[in-house]
């Protein structure tokens, strides 16, 4: 029993923190959000050079040969720095399917490929798409496949080089890779509350694709992708909550009212203490989930669901308390807090609500 990081992992975290603090200080958030691309594209090769895009990719494919615990550290630090870029999409959502093809892994590791996932899950689509029964169909055309159909609320749809698509083929749902070229597939990026992680609609019109995993094998990859994604977001949420807490504490120490720092008032300090406590509990759950995912432990599913439900709620609450502690200033567009708050809300909305995730857990408990 050893629930601590190794010295190398501690070093990875320290290095990530200092790199991100220098590269993406809060003063740059507005500029990045307003830029044409909405993210700093030059940062992607830097992330690849740091070994982050290939953290869990084998050394033979140009990766660092590490595991999800190392990726977990990166996710937490990227959440803390509110990184805008398709790291979550590529490394959490797309990588398990891309792992079916060593050439694709090498491209991810070298920074030459970003991707996201277009899931076949009505709960993860807009009401309009759901009403239309939106889905993507795959049919064979020689040694390629053609995709046809539509899916929406796809993270980072406008930013990535390729889509991993859960599409319905003759034998069931398989995983396909559709690379972007010549403005195909058709993408519409929605005006998204969290500008650092925009959602979009992807429309395929007999677009050529490559099969990554055929039906029965695809099911296991889809399940493991969900575990990775939920654990990754739990870690991001911990990063978001930690930074919101740090901002709140800083303000409570420096802001004076009635002749003393507002942090001396327990109505303020106890709110921040609650944020600390919830963030630490969320951190414990997120690290547990990360370890379970890394080890493919039997509890990975429950751990990831529990961690995401809890950490997302904790991150939202952390931002809300920090906004309250900041008073009117925390409610302004110029203050960075609202950007963290919006990321926390994005994370909370991903996949299922906290209540739906808890219903999954209850089902496992009551049935077990």
């Amino acid at each position, binding site marked *: 029993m050893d629930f601590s990081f190794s010295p190398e992992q501690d070093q990875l975290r320290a290095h990530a923190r200092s790199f991100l603090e220098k590269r993406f200080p809060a003063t740059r958030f507005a500029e990045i959000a307003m830029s044409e691309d909405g993210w700093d594209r030059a940062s992607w090769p830097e992330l690849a050079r740091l070994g982050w895009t290939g953290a869990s990719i084998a050394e033979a494919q140009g990766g660092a040969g590490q595991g999800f615990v190392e990726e977990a550290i990166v996710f937490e630090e990227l959440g803390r720095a509110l990184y805008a870029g398709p790291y979550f999409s590529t490394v959490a959502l797309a990588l398990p399917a891309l792992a079916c093809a060593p050439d694709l892994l090498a491209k991810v590791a070298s920074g030459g490929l970003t991707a996201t996932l277009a899931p076949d899950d009505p709960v993860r689509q807009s009401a309009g798409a759901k009403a239309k029964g939106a889905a993507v169909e795959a049919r064979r055309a020689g040694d390629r496949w053609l995709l046809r159909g539509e899916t929406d609320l796809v993270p980072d749809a406008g930013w990535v080089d390729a889509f991993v698509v859960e599409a319905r083929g003759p034998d069931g749902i398989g995983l396909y890779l559709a690379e972007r070229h010549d403005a195909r597939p058709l993408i519409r990026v929605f005006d998204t509350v969290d500008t650092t992680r925009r959602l979009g609609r992807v429309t395929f019109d007999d677009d050529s694709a490559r099969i990554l995993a055929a039906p029965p094998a695809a099911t296991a990859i889809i399940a493991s992708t969900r575990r990775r994604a939920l654990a990754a977001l739990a870690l991001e949420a911990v990063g978001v909550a930690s930074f919101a807490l740090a901002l709140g504490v800083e303000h409570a*120490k420096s802001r004076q009212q009635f002749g003393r720092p507002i942090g001396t008032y*327990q109505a303020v*300090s106890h709110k921040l*203490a609650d944020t600390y406590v919830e963030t630490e509990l969320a951190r*414990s759950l997120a690290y547990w989930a990360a370890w379970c995912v890394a080890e493919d432990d039997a509890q990975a599913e429950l751990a990831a669901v529990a961690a995401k439900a809890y950490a997302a709620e904790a991150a939202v609450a952390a931002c809300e308390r920090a906004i309250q502690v900041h008073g009117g200033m925390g409610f302004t567009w110029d203050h960075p807090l609202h950007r963290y708050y919006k990321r926390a809300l994005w994370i909370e909305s991903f996949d299922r609500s906290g209540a739906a995730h808890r219903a999954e857990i209850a*089902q496992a*408990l009551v049935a077990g």
Partner: protein
Amino acid sequence: MDLRDGPEEAAFRATLRTWLAANVPAELRGLRGWTGPALALGRAWSKRLAGAGYAGLTWPKEYGGAGQPWRYQAVYLEELAKAEAPQHLGVIGLGMAGPTIIAHGRPDQKARYLAEILSADDIWCQGFSEPGSGSDLASVRTRIELVGDHFVVNGQKVWSSYAHIADRCILLGRSAVTGEKHEGLTYLVVDMKSPGVEVRPLRQITGEAEFNEIFFTDVAVPKENLLGEIGGGWRVAMTTLSHERGTFGFALAGALDVAVRKLVALARERAGADALVRDRVAREWIELQALRYTNYRALAHLERTGAPGPEGSVAKLRWSEANQRLTKLAIEIVGQESQVADGDGTAAYWRYQQLRSRGNTIEAGTSEILRNIIAERVLGLPRSR
């Protein structure tokens, strides 16, 4: 990072589990406090634990302990809770007085007290809180005066668990009334059989009496019972309190584990289809996992640095609130029958647990004080007073 038991821990856990299955007296499973006939059984149980080598697991070998790393104590507490076995009667001696004596005691004091703590021949209680000094411990007023070759103690202590059965008491009192309040404190070991010591049990809202008032009237305490220096009691008391929350979280999470299992069984049996009940059950299960893994992080910190980190306060704070919510949910599921006090079935169990849980946010540091500790010592916010 590896969340599995290593081979040695796994072996220790397996042996302990087998031993508990064979040795916990049926009358003591799910015990509601050390009163009445349980008491005699409790002494025998504690001696049995000690005889099997389960007392003082983390104490250094030179003082009769097993000299094991903290993780063994964690496994011990987890398994004890899982078996619904009561703790050793001498938890205050083993967890607080003993480590304080090891840290601050003279060789003759170590020789005199430590072996009897381990063997359960001496049961200890704690004389810290007073009617006028709860959270503000440094304001204690129990007088300690040096008269010739002994101290004379006068005053009143309160909320002392085990005082009604204790042989000795760690007592924090005031030896100087002028100057800084933290500097006039002195720490003594008091023999509970001394003339002038009177213990009156306090009945709790559950009806049971687990704690007591202790009155000291001109109690003579030999000079050699001084722990640390005259006026140096605060530093000694801080050692005691830091040990209060060392691996305490494991006992709490262990107890919560048992409660969550029982809650899941209750919900399955009586409210399986109720979505609101299911949501609340799932919340408490998640909270339990959060506390459990926070304890493991705290353990890693403790083993690396030798000192408990802030996670101890976190665990106590959240455990107490979880236990209150959980037991409230249970009596809601049980329904009006939860108001019937007779019998020892499901309804009576949850009725007792729910009322008892109201003490959880008060005992061993109120939730308000724990939030102050986190705000000031962890977050570095300015003091509120």
